[in-house]
């Protein structure tokens, strides 16, 4: 019995792995969970985007695979008026939508599809607006309703976005998942059964959905008429596997080719595994400690600088990130353009820190550090990080109490302007634009909200507002570099770390690239 079992398995495994070489190539991806759905604009989770926007759909512009660089996609080119208020996109011709059991497209992609995709999100009376829950978190979160005045069809292959105010990150926003383009023709056809439109997605992307079984498996096949050429692999399968150690066992056995989020404890073994390539890249994120700059004595930059100098960041990288992190000296990660290489980080110097505190007239300071209750890419163990900072600050005579709340509670309480203590938190970038970090996290609009330092500093605000309205990238870079210098001088945060993302893939996988946005893009990936 044992022998037959073994034989059966060996043959099954051989079939699974050998089949690609002979006939159809099937790539299996061990993902971490089920998508919430297949219409990206309705959701916010990366798991959902991996299963939908990144395989099934295209956007007008997209991020070049593995970078934060914007490249043309469904729009071949675009132009911006000098006042920065009108963006005109020239659409690509001959783009085919997927043909599925439910739907056979009769026409190519055109301006109507662009209008449908955005109007659904922005017009409350649109027939599809309220379908499937009808809340568009990213569209609203990126301030699209205030920003977009109108979207006009110029002709079948030209669309004009009219804005209420100039906004340089607009193009980057349109490369985000929520801006995925759906088929207006399919929407018309499904008007009697609108929920199905979201459950059986039809896009122009490199893969089309074949079947989905919740918590088990998602199957795709390559779109034969994909506008940029058919994908090198024929089938793409997501094997949903929640436990990271089990994912690794599956990868070892060849039950999958690529896996997400490895268990840090397994990294060592993966590095030595002959069947596995362990890819790595710095993540598009930052983990920080935000002081409450509105509350004494933290309203004094000298006190904040002193406390920053008392933190041993390298020890945090070693203990909390176990090497899977890098010390952050800027509030934006190095994978984003305009990252200021010249910034000099606060040196770890407890003696100087004590001196600065004395200079500020501080003694016997007691404060709190907030430790997040969950693991995030930018902070795998906030409790441990808080304990290390607690010990560091004790060296300079500052008593720390560590507090924590349940995650939803933590997020909302930490926004309070009269909050007591410094908060550990972080951010993962949405669109690769510096504005998405600096304005959201440190701008005056964010006070009482996403700006946990409650920091509103006019010279900084002036720079980021100026950078927001011009499209000249060199000039914007100049402003953002200066803004980063101000952040270091004024120290509303202790910038702590950027995570390093690890991606174990099997040796037979060709040209898999880590996506800086944390996603998984399988167009362009091949199997040996």
């Amino acid at each position, binding site marked *: 019995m044992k022998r037959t*079992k073994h034989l059966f*398995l060996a043959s099954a495994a051989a079939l699974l792995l050998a089949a690609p070489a002979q006939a159809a190539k099937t790539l299996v991806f061990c993902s971490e969970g089920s998508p919430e759905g297949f219409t990206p604009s309705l959701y916010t989770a990366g798991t959902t985007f991996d299963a939908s926007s990144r395989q099934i759909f295209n956007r007008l512009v997209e991020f070049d695979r593995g970078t934060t660089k914007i490249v043309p996609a469904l729009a071949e080119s675009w132009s911006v008026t000098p006042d920065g208020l009108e963006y005109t996109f020239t659409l690509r011709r001959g783009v085919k939508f997927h043909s599925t059991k439910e739907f056979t497209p009769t026409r190519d992609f055109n301006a109507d599809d662009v209008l449908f995709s955005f109007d659904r999100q922005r017009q409350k009376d649109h027939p599809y607006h309220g379908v499937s829950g009808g*809340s568009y*978190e990213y569209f609203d979160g990126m301030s699209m309703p205030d920003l977009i005045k109108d979207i006009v069809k110029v002709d079948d292959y030209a669309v004009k976005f009219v804005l209420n105010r100039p906004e340089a990150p607009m193009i980057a926003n349109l490369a985000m998942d929520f801006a995925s383009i759906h088929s207006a023709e399919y929407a018309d056809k499904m008007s009697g059964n609108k929920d199905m439109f979201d459950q059986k997605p039809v896009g122009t992307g490199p893969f089309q959905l074949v079947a989905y079984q919740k918590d088990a498996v998602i199957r795709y096949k390559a779109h034969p008429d994909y506008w940029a050429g058919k994908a090198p692999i024929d089938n793409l*399968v997501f094997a949903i596997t929640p436990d990271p150690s089990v994912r690794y066992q599956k990868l070892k056995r060849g*039950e999958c080719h690529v896996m997400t989020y490895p268990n840090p404890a397994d990294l060592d073994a993966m590095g030595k595994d002959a069947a596995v390539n362990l890819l790595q890249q710095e993540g598009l994120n930052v983990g920080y400690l935000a002081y409450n700059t509105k509350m004494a004595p933290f309203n004094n930059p000298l006190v904040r600088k002193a406390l920053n100098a008392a933190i041993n960041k390298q020890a945090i990288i070693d203990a909390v990130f176990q090497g899977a992190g890098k010390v952050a000296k800027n509030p934006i990660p190095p994978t984003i353009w305009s990252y200021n290489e010249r910034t000099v980080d606060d040196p770890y110097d407890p003696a100087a820190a004590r001196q600065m505190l004395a200079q500020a007239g501080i003694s016997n300071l007691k404060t709190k550090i907030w430790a997040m209750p969950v693991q995030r890419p930018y902070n795998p163990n906030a409790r441990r990080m808080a304990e290390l900072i607690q010990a560091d600050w004790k060296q300079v005579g500052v008593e720390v109490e560590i507090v924590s709340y349940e995650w939803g509670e933590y997020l909302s309480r930490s*926004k309070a302007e009269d909050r007591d203590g410094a908060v550990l938190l972080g951010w993962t970038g949405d669109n690769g634009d510096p504005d998405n970090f600096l304005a959201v996290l440190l701008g005056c609009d964010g006070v009482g909200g996403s700006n946990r330092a409650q920091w509103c500093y006019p010279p900084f605000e002036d720079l980021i507002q100026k950078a927001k309205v011009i499209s000249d990238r060199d000039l914007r870079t100049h402003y953002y570099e200066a803004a980063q210098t101000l952040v270091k001088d004024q120290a509303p945060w202790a910038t702590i770390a950027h995570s390093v993302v690890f991606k174990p893939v099997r040796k037979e996988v060709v040209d898999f690239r880590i996506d800086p946005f944390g996603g998984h893009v399988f167009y362009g990936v091949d199997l040996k």
Partner: protein
Amino acid sequence: MFRFLFTKIALLLPTFFGVSVVAFTFIRMLPGDPVELLAGERGMTPERHAALMQQYGFDRPFWEQYLHFLGKVFQGDLGTSIVTKQPVLEEFLTLFPATVELSLCAMLFATLIGLPAGVIAAVRRGSFLDHSIMSVSLAGYSMPIFWWGLLLIIFFSGMLEWTPVSGRISLMYFFDPVTGFMTIDAWLSGEEGALASALHHLVLPAAVLGTIPLAVIARQTRSAMLEVLQEDYVRTARAKGLAPWRVVGLHALRNALITVVTVIGLQVGLLLAGAILTETIFAWPGVGKWVVDSISRRDYASVQGGLLLIALVVMVVNLCVDLLYGLVNPRIRYQR
């Protein structure tokens, strides 16, 4: 008999209400609301938060929400998940067969091994065999499922390569679900090797989930048997010169089974709890994992609906166990 059945069913009603209150209340007692969690670090304006709370009806008084929920339940509507926007009942029914399949196999595994082991231990009381069986079952009973599952995967799948690591069937088989039971669907599909693959994938998770029930059944069978074996009628049977297997198998075991059947019935509730961990490890798409995910996402509708349905299943199983007594042991049947 009908009166018996009627009383039993009538007794389920208060339990059902109790569970609905508990499920409804507890998830709301947890701090953090679903809208806040949907937004994540990004956050949202207080106005938008309020608007969404109103849209989902979370701003209404607690009792009003409860009555609304209860009213809907009696119309067969358990609400819609805030995360997936799918009807809760539909999600439950897609996932439930996987849990049932796994639990049945685990129970089968536990009973087929646990029962004979218990009988042998009782018959050979005090022997080396008895001590071994009892200490192994004590170890099994105390096993943390999560660790145990991973250990078996690393050993049987990773090192020996006897079993697949996780999932319900090899990915090369692909057919639409008909019943939701993978073994039945595989058989119906007619694809060669599909059924074997489905069974093969069941071995490890069923063994892991069945470990604790196995230990409990073995221990309960042993103590029940020990008691029965000392009864007068067993002595009489022996004195009559019946074959030892007849004495043990027919006269003793049949009477000991009452206790064992009760235990098996009670294990079903525990099995569903154990399924949460087993399902997570083996990437088994069942209801256990779904409820846990829903709790951490504060998906109120899924949690309260899911818990209610699971409780209903446990109640029905226990009702069946009560009815089974009569079949197993005539003495109970005659009393009623």
